[in-house]
């Protein structure tokens, strides 16, 4: 009985604390298994100091392969493709260039509303690594750059505008 109540308390406290970071652009799932296909959901809860969001740009880090964004009605979707320093084999095809940057533009997300920007990609096979997805949020007036990558020994909480982070967990045994 008491164990259940304690669990409920912990859940409640966690729910309360989860609200604190709502001002930042974050990933819905901050943990994912290595070498899996990951659906990245960027949660945009706020504009820039009250101004509506008009553009979201995310940089796909090297190592995240075959990135594909999800289109959004009312927004124009463009990608920037870059040549890879080292081509790799993808199920029989040689891949020489990758999507490096994804941009949703032309829309308007007022500060009072919430939206998600989705893309998926194949995560690298590096269990334990922490990947950062730098996001530039442009608004009607102003820009928020969620691009600070924590240095060794520091966490995202130490920064004012941290990049959304993803921690890779061990691959599940098949």
């Amino acid at each position, binding site marked *: 009985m008491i164990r259940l109540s304690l669990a409920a308390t912990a859940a409640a406290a966690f729910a309360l604390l989860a*609200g604190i970071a709502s001002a930042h652009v974050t990933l819905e799932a901050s943990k994912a298994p290595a070498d899996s296909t990951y659906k990245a959901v960027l949660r945009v809860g*706020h504009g820039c100091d*009250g101004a509506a969001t008009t553009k979201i740009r995310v940089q796909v880090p090297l190592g995240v392969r075959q990135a594909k964004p999800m289109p959004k009605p009312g927004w124009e979707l463009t990608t920037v493709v870059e040549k890879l320093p080292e081509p790799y084999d993808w199920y029989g095809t040689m891949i020489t260039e990758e999507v490096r940057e994804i941009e949703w533009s032309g829309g308007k997300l007022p500060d009072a509303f919430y939206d998600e920007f989705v893309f998926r990609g194949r995560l690298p096979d590096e269990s334990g690594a922490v990947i950062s997805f730098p996001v530039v949020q442009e608004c009607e007036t102003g820009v928020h750059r969620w691009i600070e990558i924590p240095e060794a020994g520091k966490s995202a909480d130490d920064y004012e505008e941290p990049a959304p982070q993803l921690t890779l967990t061990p691959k599940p045994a098949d």
Partner: protein
Amino acid sequence: MSPLRAGVVLRHVCRSLLVLALVGMPREVAAHAVLVESAPADGATLATSPGEIRLTFNEPVAPIAIRLLDGAGTPVAGIAVEAIDRTVMLRLGGELPTGTYVVSYRVTSQDSHAVAGSILFAVGTAVVRPQQAAAAADGWRIVVAMNRFLWLGLSLAAAGLALFLMLCGTILEPGQVRRLERLLLFAAVSALPLALLAVGLAGGLLLDAGAAGLLDADSWRVGSTTTLARSMAVGFVGLAISALSARLTSSRAGSAVRGIGVLLVVGSFGLTGHAATVEPAIAMGPAVALHAGLGAFWWGSLLGLGVVLRGLAPITAAPVVRRFSRAAVAAVAVLLALGIAIGLVQLRRLSALVEPGYGLVLCGKLLLAGGLLGIASYNKLRLMPRLAGGDAAALQTLRRTVRAEQALVLVVFAATAALGQLPPPRTEAAASEAVTAETVSSNGGKATVAISPGRAGRNEIFLQLTDATGQPLAAQEIGLAVSLPSAGIEPIRRRLHEVAPGRYHLPELILPMSGRWNVRVEALVSDFDKRNFTLEADIR
């Protein structure tokens, strides 16, 4: 408490927490608080003490720590802090004496995110507004330089013509004397409004006011507190005296009055500017004034000769030219020597002569002056004897060389006006006496900050950034956040502008008090790459 009762209490607590969690889940309207407006505004200069200070945010906030600190760093007593809806009010107990103040705030917004910052304002003195756009300041600098150029041309013409008349008035025909006196009067009267305008322009430049800054009383008030205003006042009086005594070439007393006018105009140049106010000011001020006086003599004589030579035959022109020549060569030699000496003090090292900015402009000015000396020597050695022999062609050539010299002097004036708006290398050297701090970031980049003079009050910031390979790090934007945690001053944010690849500058930053300041440099290298450097500097 019995185990059963404890279980009941615990269940109640958990239930209420669950409800609280559900109710307290992020609402769409819950936002990161931002300071929307403050009264007084950041960087404002107030004529009188405000009764209260208001900070307005974009959503209701709860104050954690709000402080009002004076110029010495002591918290002002008798402050009552009240948070009403979206506004935090500081009610002041009494009058604030003249000085600069810092309002340092730390509040928490609905999402429990702490938001902190500082704003500066001053009562009764000038506070420079945060330098947000260097472009606006550049516009002011160009206008100030143009005004200075016109001032140099006209005020030195008035003083110089008076000197020329003193030298050659007795051997000139009355008609020519009248013509020169009219020119003197015109120059003196035209320069008077420029002196007044300079005061307003100086204030506008200091405050970085908008395009209509001259219509703003603040610009004039701030301008009147500068050394330039003092210099313009003296110059104004000198020009007025020159104008009033324009017609008095013949009388002894008249010459004396005119002489006072000349002294005042020339002396005004020693009261302001980089060159005259550097240590030892007691020697540099008079040196610059003497330099200006010799320049005035040269310029006025060229103008005078231009007028006089128009109507004369070679033989009658010879005595005038001879009298002028004798004085001129000595004058320009001293002029050049003084110019080099003053320039060296500003440069601190000869290699700075070829550096872009102050160095190159000074180099150009020296070369032009050398050219003038060359033409003057040619006149004295070659043309003079032929003139005395009645050679009409020599007179023609002399007229042409005088016109060439006049043009060169105008270019020298333009260079001088430009020098007045450029920072001399001396101030960069002073930065080495200033507080420097260096840090290396985790990816190998290095940031070196020099805060000059490194004392509480007005400071200048120089920043140098290099990447891991030692190359200058170019960044799209450089943000600076300085804070003094020990005194509770939250970050003051400014933008720096680029002066050279990897080198950035902030002309003015007011650090209200001494202590161990925390300096954070945020370099936006590309859209997705921001490098932060954290340094500490001990400000005296």
